């Protein structure tokens, strides 16, 4: 295993430009660590969309409420996987939970994650579905599903109406707790990078909030596209008031995220500290395509333009749908590029600020494109399973979904 790394690094040696510290040749955080904030961001964004319906009573969003929750759960279940695969000693990862270092941002991951998964998401989904689960446990035609539902009722087969009222209240309270938790989960991911003073590309107090808003944009775009896709797959009419509202929130998130990113860039350029020269070279060189073209032009400006048009003009439904689908897809690609630019981009230049190393994405191997693609696709399989078990739409379980 390590031989291939060493051979690849030997090849990289003559691709260094300028001067880097000898240990900086190897890029420490690869595509898997790009994937991690991306997946977590989708979780936080999807959950925040769900909270809008529940906490702020945006009733029109009802059709996407459960879908958002299930999407958040599916992505949350896979989110730690890229981290785990990336570790040198995955078998020791439980030490993060048993002997966390209180000064380490990363050590808090396990706790924030468990809190979010166990206390917030699972509880909220269960409470929301409880009434149906009890019904399905009796009526579902498949014995396997009946068995799973029976386990999921936790032994209460005849809950009273009063208990559903309590469920609803607890569920609402959970969402209210969940909202800051989602913010914490993703804001914290930004902090992992933003708190590294050794790296001027990362070290900014804006990092958590930039991550948060781009997470919201990606999560809302993800749920929006999933909703459109599922309606198409189930041959059901899209509820346009819902889709229009989701798109409106999506536009807001994209605008805020983009403004914050630009604010940060302008500040860096204006202050022009010691590290500015190397950052400028980085943006004009190695990150030109992924930052200027993909992240800014295609991933932010074009979606803002398209979504803006839908707000200004009364476009026909068909056109709106196309605009939403295109801007959602572009934004998801753009936000992936943003994670790439932060994580990989931040490791291209030397901390001596005098040169660049390079990164060649391998196809195979633990940190290769193949394993990253598998991890990126996994949440959709989890989501398919969840949709099979807990259909978010109001038709009979077991029917053609």
């Amino acid at each position, binding site marked *: 295993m390590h031989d291939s790394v060493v051979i690849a690094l030997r090849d990289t040696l003559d691709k260094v430009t300028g001067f880097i510290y000898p240990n900086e040749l190897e890029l420490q955080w690869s595509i898997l660590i790009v994937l991690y904030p991306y997946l977590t961001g989708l979780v936080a964004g999807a959950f925040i969309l769900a909270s809008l319906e529940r906490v702020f009573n945006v009733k029109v969003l009802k059709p996407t409420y459960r879908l958002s929750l299930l999407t958040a759960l599916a992505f949350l279940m896979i989110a730690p996987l890229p981290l785990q695969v*990336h570790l040198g000693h995955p078998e020791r990862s439980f030490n993060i939970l048993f002997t966390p270092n209180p000064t*380490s941002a990363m050590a808090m991951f396990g706790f924030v994650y468990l809190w979010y998964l166990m206390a917030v998401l699972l509880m909220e989904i269960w409470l929301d579905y409880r009434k149906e689960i009890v019904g399905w446990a009796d009526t579902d035609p498949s014995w396997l599903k009946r068995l799973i539902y029976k386990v999921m009722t936790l032994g209460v087969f005849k809950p009273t109406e009063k208990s559903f009222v309590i469920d609803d209240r607890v569920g609402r309270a959970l969402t209210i707790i969940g909202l800051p938790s989602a913010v914490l989960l993703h804001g914290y991911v930004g902090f992992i990078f933003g708190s590294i003073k050794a790296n001027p590309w990362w070290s900014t107090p804006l990092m958590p909030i930039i991550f948060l808003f781009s997470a919201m944009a990606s999560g809302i775009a993800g749920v929006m596209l999933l909703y459109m896709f599922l309606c198409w797959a189930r041959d059901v009419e899209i509820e346009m008031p819902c889709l229009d509202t989701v798109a409106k929130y999506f536009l807001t998130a994209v605008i805020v995220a983009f403004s914050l990113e630009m604010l940060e860039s302008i500040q860096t350029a204006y202050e022009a500290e010691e590290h500015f020269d190397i950052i400028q070279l980085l943006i004009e060189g190695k990150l030109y395509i992924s930052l200027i073209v993909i992240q800014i032009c295609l991933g932010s400006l074009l979606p803002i333009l398209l979504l803006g048009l839908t707000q200004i003009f009364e476009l026909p439904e068909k056109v709106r749908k196309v605009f939403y689908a295109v801007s959602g897809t572009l934004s998801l690609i753009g936000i992936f590029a943003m994670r790439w630019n932060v994580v990989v981009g931040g490791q291209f230049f030397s901390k001596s*600020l005098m040169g660049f190393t390079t990164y060649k994405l391998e196809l195979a191997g633990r940190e290769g494109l193949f394993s990253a693609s598998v991890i990126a696709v996994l949440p959709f399989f989890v989501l398919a399973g969840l949709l099979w078990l807990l259909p978010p739409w109001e038709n009979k379980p077991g029917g053609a979904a």
Partner: protein
Amino acid sequence: MRELPRRDFLKLTASALLTAAAAAAAAPVAWAEKFYREPPWRRKKPYWGFCVDIEKCIGCGRCVDACKTENDVPREPFYVRTWVERYIIRKDNEIKIDSPNGGMDGYPPVENPETVAKSFFVPKLCNLCENSPCVQVCPVGATFKTEDGVVLIDRKYCIGCRYCIQACPYGTRYFHPILQVADKCSVCYHRLRRGKVTACVEACPTGARMVGDLSDPQSNVSKFRENNKVQTLKANMGTEPKLVYKGLDKEVR
């Protein structure tokens, strides 16, 4: 609930404001007293420090070789616990820095030597930070500072997340390709504890490197710090390195 008369309310507000103002006025005095921080080596003996005299370094690279041998560092040029950088600053202010193979096998000859304004070698190693970013970020506490001031890694506990490598401003850490854990200069802690100096110090033919006990005012490092104008690398990071340099040029990163 009892109603608060307006007069009482005003009195209460005024006294709260006055108290806050008095505290604010007294605060700078209190802060000024706290501004002087006692060096940690006053409290703990021994407390290890390191000094480098740049003017004495001839760039022979024997320190790098000795370190790799002593500490089983992979022989590849991209894994080093210590290395030596060569700076060539030309008369037109063009700066060239190199450290081929960490400086272990010497350096290629200088082109157009007549255009060189100055040239020097800078040995690099763990900066022995008092406030180590690497210790701060390690999620499991596998990287820790010993009570005598040395930052070490517990190889049996490190999970290999590489966060510490990102956090070190000096690039002194690498990921060990065989052990799959982070690795760094330990200032030959195993030797220090037995009363020996580090392998690099022992191998240095010119005495450009020094290791010693900062808590002893008569030690080589204490005397060196006392008698010379010394500097640390990247002082703005607030890491408070216990590795100091004499003769550090402003171009050195």
